[in-house]
């Protein structure tokens, strides 16, 4: 079953059993640090490849930016 997730407030289609790592790759976030919260909980980087997204998941995807 495919479905949709919400990434930073915007709907994204996801394929059946698609992993978080695959979604990040598809979104072009292959950088050193992609920081992810799934349904309000931070996701450990080591688990990106095993977390399978579910229809209706809400994600925050962040990264380091310039700051003091």
């Amino acid at each position: 079953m495919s479905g949709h997730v919400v990434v930073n407030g915007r709907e994204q289609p996801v394929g059946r059993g698609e992993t978080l790592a695959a979604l990040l790759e598809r979104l072009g976030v292959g950088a050193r640090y992609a920081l992810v919260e799934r349904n309000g909980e931070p996701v450990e980087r080591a688990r990106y490849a095993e977390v399978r997204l579910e229809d209706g998941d809400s994600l925050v995807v962040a990264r380091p930016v310039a700051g003091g």
Partner: protein
Amino acid sequence: MNTHDPLVIAGREFRSRLLTGTGKYDTFETMREALAASGSQIVTVAVRRIDFDAPGEDITAFLPEDVLLLPNTSGCETAEEAVRSARLARAGGLPDWVKLEVIPDARYLLPDPVETLRAAAQLVEEDFTVLPYVLPDPVLQKKLEEVGCATVMPLAAPIGSGRGLKLRDAIRIMVEQAEVPLVVDAGLGAPSHAAEAMEMGADAVLVNTAIARAGDPVAMARAFRLAVEAGREAHRAGIMEEGSDAAASSPVAGAIHGA
């Protein structure tokens, strides 16, 4: 004098006592050169949601590999927001060190002491190494030390103002009673300000705008590096006491025109 004089934070040694921020540079290339010139080993970054419509360049490609990245919690106005930001950064692979900022005030960007203390206690409990940004408040300093903060980082003047050590008397008290490294953070505008903080006995300073917005940021980074080194060495050397009268540097007796 022993030349081995590392800055030690949470058991980790650093040669450099100049921490730098990465904000406000015109380009990431300039930032990279300035960071190298500064000699900094601790470099701050912010954490923000990615705008997929305009992702821009990835800053991490321009950051040296051998520095400690220090994610801040800028943009957070409550303890809960700051804890959430720190957890997100750590889970995603950034270090478990955090520059804790809780700032509800947009005009002067002054930190909230109550929320900062609450967030600090929570983050220490979760095994973060916590470096809180605060107003110079010696009482708050003690409370932050008691909950286990790794440093206390009082501001010299409002962020980005470049006004120097406007709150020097309170910072002097904090220096006197510090049990963890005291880092003067924010408001330093010139290398002389940084040198003054170090001469007073601050353990380190954190500088961003004064370098990034200088006419030549790379040269200014070098100037701050030298000022921090000079100020530290002067503090360790022992600065002479001030006197109210003149005291001649040359011998009083035996002048050529004398008897």
